[in-house]
């Protein structure tokens, strides 16, 4: 093949590629230009200082001025309505107040209302969306100005407790609550979070429609605590019941059989200490739900975790061995919730016979202050069956009713079996 012909092929390839590339860029540009007026920056204003406490994005979804955003964007204003205002900043620079109409804490959605007239809105995409569909996420990252980010729609996250759409694209803080739209400008999801490295998540748009339909029509200011409590309570009722009804997958660790991946959304990880200096070995297994519900600040809920540590020694005596276990025998806190959100723990400590062997069990519970029907439970257990073999178990579950706390504790402790 002559050099000229080779060159020709390359040029053709470039020419073929150009229109496609140009079309996509045009898409982003065109979509941004035609829809930017429907996108708002949502600002939470601290009343006494008049300054922004946090920012996010939002988008209009009806002619009547309904704006969708994330619950976590407006969480402060939900927690202390008297202390915060919700404000919008439109693409033309105009500002105004917004009123909170409804929240869905489970799917991280909020519905707001502004008083603007004649503002454009976005349509919602109905029906299936194919994996690989090109989408465009809009929002205001880091308060830097409205941006558009291209990404790919990858369908629902597999094996998860909370439904999210996975996209390949970079969402950034501040874009939360903004829309992700397809080429026709229809909303396919609400920007919600990112795991970095082009892995980001959307709330499926179906939940936005559900929220739209279920919102209360009266104008009386709702009791948000009551509403959130009901949503959380119903959610834990559903998933814990299902958990209690299923057969649990039990796996041995050392000489103990323990619950492992008891639901599709529970992921277990393991490792073994190989420190040559220590005269004992630890085999670790941590199983957790790698998702949780944001309630505000450091307060998250709706998740659980259990951890097992199997200790074995040949050279240490009982006192030495158990002093090593003791240094790792503590309560595993599920989250960093503090005074505002939870009571201190109340604990029960006893020697309990589990599977024919004595264990030391510390069982602790705390209550949510704003949602008294919900609790965090944390359990720390240590086996006392052998002088040179032992296991530490930590188990914690966040956001659970009293009855379920008791049932799950019973089921969990009962599932731990020392092989005789």
């Amino acid at each position: 093949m002559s050099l000229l012909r080779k060159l020709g092929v390359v040029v053709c390839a470039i020419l073929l590629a150009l229109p496609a590339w140009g079309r996509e860029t045009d898409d982003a540009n065109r979509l941004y230009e035609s829809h930017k007026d429907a996108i708002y920056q949502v600002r939470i204003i601290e009343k006494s200082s008049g300054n922004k406490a946090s920012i996010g994005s939002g988008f209009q979804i009806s002619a009547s001025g309904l704006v969708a955003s994330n619950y976590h964007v407006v969480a402060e204003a939900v927690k202390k309505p008297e202390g915060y205002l919700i404000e919008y900043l439109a693409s033309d620079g105009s500002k105004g107040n917004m009123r909170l109409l409804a929240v869905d804490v489970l799917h991280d959605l909020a519905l707001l209302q502004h008083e603007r007239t004649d503002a454009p809105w976005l349509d919602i995409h109905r029906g299936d969306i194919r994996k690989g569909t090109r989408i465009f996420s809009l929002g205001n990252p880091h308060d830097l100005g409205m941006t558009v980010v291209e990404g790919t729609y990858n369908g629902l996250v597999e094996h998860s407790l909370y439904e999210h759409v996975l996209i390949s694209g970079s969402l950034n803080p501040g874009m939360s609550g903004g829309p992700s739209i397809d080429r026709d400008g229809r909303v396919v999801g609400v920007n919600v979070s990112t795991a970095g490295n082009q892995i980001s998540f959307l709330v499926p748009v179906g939940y936005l429609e559900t929220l739209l339909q279920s919102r209360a029509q009266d104008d009386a200011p709702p009791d948000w605590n009551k509403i959130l409590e009901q949503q959380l309570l119903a959610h834990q009722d559903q998933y814990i019941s299902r958990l209690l009804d299923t057969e649990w997958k039990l796996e041995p660790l050392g000489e103990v059989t323990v619950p492992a991946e008891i639901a599709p959304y529970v992921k277990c990880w393991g490792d073994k200490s190989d420190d040559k200096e220590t005269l004992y070995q630890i085999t670790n297994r941590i199983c957790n739900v790698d998702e949780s519900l944001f309630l505000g600040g450091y307060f998250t809920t709706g998740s659980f975790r259990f951890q097992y540590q199997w200790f074995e020694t040949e050279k240490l005596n009982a006192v030495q061995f158990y002093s090593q276990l003791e240094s790792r025998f503590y309560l595993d806190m599920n989250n960093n919730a503090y005074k505002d959100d939870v009571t201190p723990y109340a604990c029960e400590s006893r020697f309990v016979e589990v599977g024919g062997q004595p264990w030391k069990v510390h069982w602790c519970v705390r209550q949510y202050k704003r949602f008294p029907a919900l609790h965090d439970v944390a359990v720390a257990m240590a086996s006392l069956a052998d002088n040179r073999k032992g296991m530490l178990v930590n188990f914690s579950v966040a956001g659970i009713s009293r009855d379920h706390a008791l049932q799950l504790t019973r089921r969990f402790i009962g599932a731990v079996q020392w092989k005789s």
Partner: protein
Amino acid sequence: MEIVVEVLARHGRVRERYKLSGADIAIGRAYQNDVIIGDPYVCPLHLQLHYNAEDGCWRVVDQSTQNGTFLVGTGRLRQPHILRSGDEFDIGESRIRVLLPQHEIAATRRLPSGRVLADYLASPITAVALLICTLGLFAFAQYLGQGKETKLQELLLEALMFLAVPFVWACVWGLIGRVAVHEARFAFHLSMGSLLVVSLFALAISAEYLGFGFSNDNLTLWLESLGEGVLVCAFLLGGLQMATQMQRLRRWVVANGIAWALVGITMLTYTVKSDPYESQASMSFALKPPFARLQAATTQDDFMAGLGDTFAELEQYAE
């Protein structure tokens, strides 16, 4: 005629004792006196003791002094005072006691058969032996806390810092003793210091084990506080007895006062400062070997039944 004059120090201890003969005894600051008292508030010739052969009585006569002579319990001597054996007089800033040779004395005390504990403790050999035992004990305790191969030197080095306690204890009491009774008795206090640090350590360990064995954290706290009070009080008593001239009652009051004040302050800071959120930030538990379990393990059902009370505890935080 014979008479005994005692010059007393504070707390009633006899500093000097004179046995004198003759019918006239002179007491004062001047060197011609029979009893010379180096006190600037005492007159050169302050007091005269005079024996009257007719009635067989001694008379105490103040020599019209500037600062006077005071019979303890009565007051200033205005005229010759007929002496009763054992009378005490304040002259200037000094106190004297005058006794007749036939003054009754206490019954002879029996020597303890063998040496008393205090004598053993005061021996330097005991002090050194106790120090070595303390070092050994703490090194062993370090060994029991180890999860890896450790050299003896490392264990000893770590145990060495615990020896600071007996030394500080001995220095403080030695200083007090040197001032109060002109004797440091360093070896005795060093032995006591070693015993104190060992008994406090033993107390802490047993409280921890009992608390674990009975699944009761409050038990640990109370045992430790009470035990610390008793131990500190006992060792303070020993120190006070050796290093001061305090009367028995006073010693008791001082030792108990200091010991329980310390315990009280510790408990107070513990309760005042204990914010449940802070103390729960990392909640760790005691864990001992299987032999330390002093209670039968309950069944799961009994355990679950008790959890209702734990929920009830949360009500105290309701707003």
